Each structure stands twice: as structure tokens, then as C-alpha cells.
């Protein structure tokens, strides 16, 4: 086992506290200076089934998992059965000897059995506390000081802390030290999910109202913002539907309050009439679409990148929109702030396209690596000229006024309208206003040239380029590093940063596009701008690429 890069898998039934345990394990190692990535795999049910987290720990910053694991923490027999193939000769399994039978286990693997079920029963504790026992055992096996564990527990468990500590201590005491994991000499970087980083970016961008109907994988944004609402003077609303959500949000925008909504593909279906309304009425709005596999209900708790063309084309009519697909926590933070700024500057809908892997996965979050950016004020009415909400200007941007404004009557309209906002069906005026709205795209595209809308990583001299977007960034960057390849990641999907993309492709003779969908959506998008992909690596089983899996598939193409 390499102490520079190792993985822990904890598994059991939903309701066992697997998710929480994964986070606690991540935090323990994070405190030791380790960089952490956690993949959370859970079915769409409340109790039962099989749920697991893979916690990968490394010296370097990481954003993907490996198939093979070094520690397997099995709270039930299923966990052992389903994941024993992941074990290596050097792996360790820690298990509840009351519920797991180690049939067919490679004899080289060290096994630590603890009668966790009995132990918890003896303490009259609830079954869910079995996970604290196994965390205690893991900590001891890794030679981690009890004090560190206790410290993390105190921060993370508000309910029955003492009992949790008592049970963890028993797991700790019943395990022998197998290795000594020492703190790494580097600063601790906070752990964050993509959803949390994105939420913080919105707050920094001046968010005043967040309105959302719960839907995996973006419900955690709703929960997080509702929790911190008093601290940031936020209005957080869970309304009757996604239609209600986006219309309410547009009501806030009309009044000058920066608003956002969050959903997944199914909820976004309901939002499309509101999206189109935002386009016509020129009301700013930030929309977070967390992708998961479809069509329809699909695999609600898994991940996909199959809604790119949906968000590009959603809504009747033609209007300017901004779409960005961040690939990690830093990008989620930076680009949600930018999305808010651009949405208000250009008075357009801005869509942040994420997915379950980014939204619900845990990553290190390095705020210091993010370019400085501030919330910007939109263009406001000068209070001198008679107010016209849709004043036709050179760049298409009309100065904003918000009710109640003395001497300004603010009229927004879903119908085609004149500059004041009154309905019109006049052909000349229709053309004038349509061109005004579409003209904003040219200026937005120009502004984006000054931002890093396409990123390049890895071996810049390589003639093989890996093209990826969104949450595949992490796995592609690491695979490219190991294989000596170049990575090209477009962040902005609309208006597509053609010049930057062209620049990024320089020297690439073979372009391989990696996507979590079945029809190569990014490949199709760039084709419309004259860029061709040579080969595709697609995955559409709802699960993220593991590093090993992606490397193997790339090797198959570059032999």
C-alpha cells in the first residue's frame, strides 16, 4: 500500500450512515494534510439496498477514484460480496463479524473482524452507530491518534456524541495498528462538494433569493442555502413546483433581487417556459441544472452528461443565453459567481450545468487558486431620460430600473414589445427587438474572450488530446498525466468560445472525446463549429469513470 495514494471503501445498507461515515473518514485524513476525493454511490431509496462511498486519499490534489481499494469497511455481507474484487493482496478488510462471512477471501488479505452488532447492542445504541465503531477501527489500523478522531467526532456529531465516542473507542481498542500514517507537510485544504462550492459562488455573486423544488442531485444546494440563509440575508423558498420556482425567481429579478433556481433535467423540463420568458422579458436568472441519467426518471441518484443539447436548445424562440459547465469545486465557485455577473450584465438566463458526480462528490476546495472576481452591479437607469425598460442600445443592453422607482414605470412583457414594454405585433418593431436581444450575444462572446473559457492541462506538446467537459475533468487530467497526453476542457458551452478552443487544439492530431452520454453530445456541438473528434469514449451507466477504467480505454485507442 502506498501512503501517497490509497483508497477506502465503506459500504452497507442505506440508513446505515454510510454517507456520513465517508465524510468523517475524509475529514480525518484531510486533517492530516491528505487531499481527498469521495465518490458517493447510493440507490434511490431511503432504507435498504446497497450504498457505498469510496474515499481516495493522496498527496496530490485528486478528483477521481480508482477501482482498486486498500481498505474495505464492510458493515454487511453485501458490501464484502459486491466489492471483494476491488481488493489487492496488500488490502485490509475491517468487517462486522456478526454479519459478514469472509467466504472466498484471498488469504493474503489482512482481515480484522469485530463483533460490531453485538458491541452496539451491549451499549443499547442504535444500529446506525455501527459505523462509528468501524471508523474507530480504521483509525487505529492506520495508526491515527485517538485525539484527532475525537476532535472530528465532536465537530461532526451533534446527537449522542458521548455514545458515539464510546463505541468508536471500542472499535479503536479492538484493532491493532497496521501502519502509521503520518501527517503530510502541507496545508489543510477544506473539503467541499460541488454543490456547496457553487452555492458559495452564488452568495459571493450577490444572491438574494434561491427558489427550488427538491430534486437530486441539486437538493443539497437548497438544503445548504436554507441552512445559511440567516447568515447571508437570503430568501430561500421551496415552492409548489419547478414552474412556480422559476416564475417566482423572475419576480425577484424584476424587483432587482439576484435570484437563482436549481433542479435536474426533469425539473428543467418544467422550467423551460420560464426560461423562454426570461429570454423575452430580458430578466436575469441563474439556473442550475444538475444532470443525472434519463430519459425521464432514469437513474435518479446517478450521474450523466446527457442534457447539454437540452439546455442549449430549451425554450421556444431564439434568445441569448449563457451556459457554463464547471469541472471541479473551484470552477463551480468561480463560474457561478461569473454566471450571476453575466446574467445581470446582459439580462439573460445563465445556466450552470453540473452533474451528480460534481454536485455530490467531495473534493478539496482551494479558494486561493481562484482568480479574483467580484459581484458586479448591472447597468442602471440614469434617472434623467424618460425610462424605457427595453431601450434599444448599441450592445442591446437596456439600463435597469426597479419598482418602486420614482419617475420610472417598469414594464416587462412576455409578448413582443416596444421599448417601453407595451405589446406590439408590428413587423419592423419585431425585427428591431429580436435583433436587440440577439445582439447581446456578440458582446457576451467578446467579453468571454477575456476569461478562461477553455482550459488546457497535461502534456501541451502531445499530439493526442483528451477532450472533456464538466466532472470528467478530474479523471481526464489525471489519466493524461499518467499517459503523457494533453487535456482540453471547454467550460463555456454557449456562446461557444470558438477562438480559445481553436487555440487549445493547436498541435493536436488525434482528438479523443470523453463523455458520460451515449450520443457524444459535446462532439456534436463542436462539429457545428467545424471541429472534429477522432474517437469517442462514452460511458452511460450512471457511474463515473474510475481512473483505471479510463486509462485502459484510452490505451485501447492510442496503441
Amino acid at each position, binding site marked *: 500500500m502506498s501512503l501517497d495514494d490509497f483508497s477506502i471503501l465503506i459500504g452497507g445498507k442505506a440508513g446505515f450512515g454510510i454517507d456520513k461515515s465517508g465524510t468523517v473518514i475524509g475529514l480525518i485524513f484531510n486533517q492530516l494534510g491528505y487531499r481527498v476525493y469521495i465518490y458517493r454511490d447510493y440507490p434511490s431509496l431511503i432504507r435498504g439496498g446497497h450504498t457505498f462511498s469510496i474515499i481516495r486519499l493522496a498527496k496530490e490534489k485528486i478528483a477521481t477514484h480508482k477501482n482498486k481499494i486498500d481498505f474495505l469497511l464492510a458493515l454487511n455481507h453485501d458490501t464484502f460480496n459486491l466489492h471483494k474484487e476491488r481488493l489487492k493482496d496488500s488490502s485490509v478488510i475491517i468487517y462486522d463479524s456478526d454479519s459478514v462471512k469472509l467466504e472466498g477471501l484471498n488469504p493474503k488479505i489482512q482481515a480484522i473482524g469485530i463483533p460490531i452488532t453485538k458491541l452496539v447492542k451491549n451499549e443499547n445504541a442504535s444500529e446506525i452507530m455501527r459505523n462509528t465503531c468501524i471508523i474507530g477501527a480504521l483509525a487505529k489500523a492506520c495508526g491515527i491518534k485517538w485525539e484527532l478522531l475525537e476532535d472530528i467526532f465532536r465537530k461532526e456529531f451533534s446527537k449522542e456524541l458521548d455514545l458515539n465516542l464510546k463505541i468508536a473507542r471500542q472499535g479503536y481498542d479492538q484493532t491493532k495498528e497496521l501502519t502509521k500514517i503520518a501527517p503530510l507537510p502541507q496545508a489543510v485544504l477544506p473539503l467541499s462538494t460541488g454543490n456547496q462550492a457553487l452555492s458559495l459562488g452564488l452568495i459571493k455573486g450577490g444572491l438574494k433569493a434561491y*427558489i427550488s423544488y427538491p430534486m437530486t442531485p441539486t437538493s443539497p444546494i437548497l438544503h445548504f442555502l436554507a441552512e445559511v440563509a440567516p447568515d447571508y440575508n437570503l430568501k430561500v423558498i421551496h*415552492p409548489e413546483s419547478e414552474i412556480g420556482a422559476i416564475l417566482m*425567481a423572475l*419576480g*425577484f429579478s424584476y424587483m432587482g433581487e439576484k*435570484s437563482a433556481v436549481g433542479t435536474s433535467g426533469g425539473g428543467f423540463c418544467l422550467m423551460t417556459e*420560464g426560461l423562454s420568458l426570461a429570454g423575452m422579458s430580458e430578466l436575469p436568472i441563474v439556473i442550475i441544472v444538475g444532470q443525472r441519467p434519463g430519459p425521464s426518471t432514469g437513474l435518479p441518484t446517478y450521474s450523466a452528461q446527457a442534457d447539454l443539447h437540452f439546455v442549449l436548445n430549451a425554450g421556444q424562440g431564439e434568445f441569448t443565453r449563457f451556459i457554463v459547465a464547471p469541472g471541479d469545486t473551484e470552477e463551480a465557485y468561480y463560474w457561478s459567481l461569473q454566471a450571476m455577473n453575466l446574467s445581470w450584465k446582459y439580462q439573460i438566463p445563465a445556466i450552470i450545468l453540473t452533474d451528480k458526480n460534481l454536485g455530490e462528490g467531495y473534493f478539496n476546495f482551494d479558494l486561493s487558486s481562484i482568480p479574483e472576481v467580484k459581484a458586479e452591479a448591472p447597468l442602471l437607469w440614469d434617472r434623467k431620460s424618460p425610462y424605457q425598460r427595453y431601450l434599444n442600445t448599441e450592445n442591446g443592453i437596456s439600463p435597469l430600473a426597479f419598482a418602486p422607482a420614482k419617475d420610472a414605470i417598469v414594464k416587462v412583457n412576455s409578448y413582443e414589445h416596444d421599448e417601453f414594454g407595451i*405589446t406590439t405585433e408590428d413587423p419592423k418593431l419585431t425585427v428591431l427587438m429580436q435583433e436587440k436581444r440577439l445582439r447581446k450575444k456578440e458582446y457576451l462572446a467578446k467579453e468571454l474572450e477575456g476569461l478562461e473559457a477553455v482550459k488546457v492541462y497535461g502534456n501541451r506538446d502531445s499530439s493526442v488530446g483528451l477532450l472533456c467537459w464538466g466532472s470528467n475533468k478530474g479523471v481526464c487530467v489525471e489519466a493524461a498525466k499518467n499517459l503523457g497526453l494533453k487535456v482540453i476542457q471547454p467550460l463555456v458551452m454557449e456562446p461557444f468560445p470558438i477562438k480559445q478552443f481553436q487555440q487549445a487544439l493547436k498541435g493536436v492530431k488525434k482528438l479523443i472525446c470523453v463523455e458520460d452520454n451515449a450520443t457524444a453530445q459535446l462532439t456534436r456541438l463542436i462539429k457545428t463549429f467545424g471541429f472534429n473528434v477522432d474517437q469517442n469514449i462514452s460511458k452511460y451507466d450512471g457511474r463515473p469513470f474510475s481512473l483505471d477504467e479510463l486509462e485502459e480505454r484510452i490505451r485501447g485507442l492510442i496503441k
Partner: protein
Amino acid sequence: MNQVNLGTYAVNTWCPGCGNFAILNAIKAVLLELNAEGTPFENIVLVSGIGCHAKIVDYLNINSFYSIHGRAVPAAEGIKLANPNVKVIGFAGDGDAYGEGIEHLIFAAKRNIDITMLIHNNRVYGLTTGQYTPTSPLGYKGRSTPAGTTELPLNPLELMLASGASFLARGTSHGLELLKKVIKEAILHKGFSLVDILQVCVTYYNMYEYYDKRVYEIKDHNVGDSNQASNKIREWDYNTDSPIALGVFYQKEMPTFRL
């Protein structure tokens, strides 16, 4: 633009004799009164859905959000929640509020959010040429139901009472004084208020004579008593011939939605 009569340069395209004129005149009179009593015009925001009714915001020189079919209510809610100091008055048709957007109406009533909804209930789709709506009577023959409907109409006021609305009234487009009175009371009410306005569509469903024969103004009625309100609301079911009560059915001070 002339602020005194509150009109705009928009050409009015309602049919001659349309019941919407009465609502326009009533709201103008009420807004002028409110302004005279100290509410600045800029503190008022009008919201509409889509349909003949919705053109009213083009005809009023007041802040407005001309939204989409069925969605006037959530837009109005967002505006109110963004700034509780503004008075938000929503206009919607019966197809709009009682059909496409019914869930929003129910939830707004449930929240008792402090907005006013004025429903132009002509019991027919006008702008899409005469189809039945949720309040058309059984057997209504329209272009989508040439053999007549086989479903009973909804009593929207009964639904609103059950949903938690704290002010419910009915007016007609024949009877301007009463209409002005109930609209003003609805706007001044703190909480969710709704006025179901029997607005006549002269082209597709001319009910002037029918209503004129049956309407009467509510008297000797305790508006704070939900049982009395319920009985009065159920007197006419929007289907069978019976007296049609006008005025305030229900009014109660209740906690309003807040963040």
C-alpha cells in the same frame, strides 16, 4: 403618457362591449383612490397572465409584469417577497388561473401571501376562440367540445376557501360600483385575496342577461364566519340556475407568508 387617467398609448383591442372594460375602469378608479389616500403609484406592481384579460397591463401606465399563461400568481409572489412594501395586483383569466395555473393559485391561498388576484372569469377561452374553461357549465358546446362537455364546472371560490384564502369576493362586469368596492377591499386586505369577476365575453359567451336576472348583493352576512361563507359560496355552483351572490363572502385576518 397621462398619469392622471392612468392610460397608455396602447390601442385597446378588446371587442366592443367586452366585460374587461368594466374591470379596467374599476381598477383605474381604485388605483386613483389608493393614490389619493397615500399609496404612490410606483409602489404598485401589476401582473397578468396571457389571454384577453392580460392586455389590461398594457392599458395601465403602472409598473407591470406581463407574464405567461397560468403563471401570473408565482410571478406576483416573487415580486411581493422581494419587496413586501409594494402592492401586487394580479390579473388572470379563468382558463389561466383556474386551469393552467390552478396549482399556483391553491398554494398562494395556502400560504396566505399578501397579494390580490382579480380573476376575469368569462367562463370561456376568448383569445383562442371559444373553448370551454374550468367554470363553463355542463354541456357547454365549444370548438373543442362540439357535442357539449360532460364535466361539471369548478366552483373556484369553494376551492379557494378550502385552500386557505383569507379574502374572497365576487363581482360582475355589470355593476361598476360594487366591483370597485370589492376590488379596493381586496387590495387593502392583508393576506391572499381573490375576486372572482363574472366578466362577460360578448363574442363567445354573452351572459349579460343571464347574470342580470340572477345577481344580488350579499347582505346580513358575517364575513368572518367560514361556515356562512361556505354556504353562501355554494349557493351557486356555476352550473345550475340559482341566485348569484355578489360582494365579499369571506374575510379573516390570518398570519401571512413570510421569509
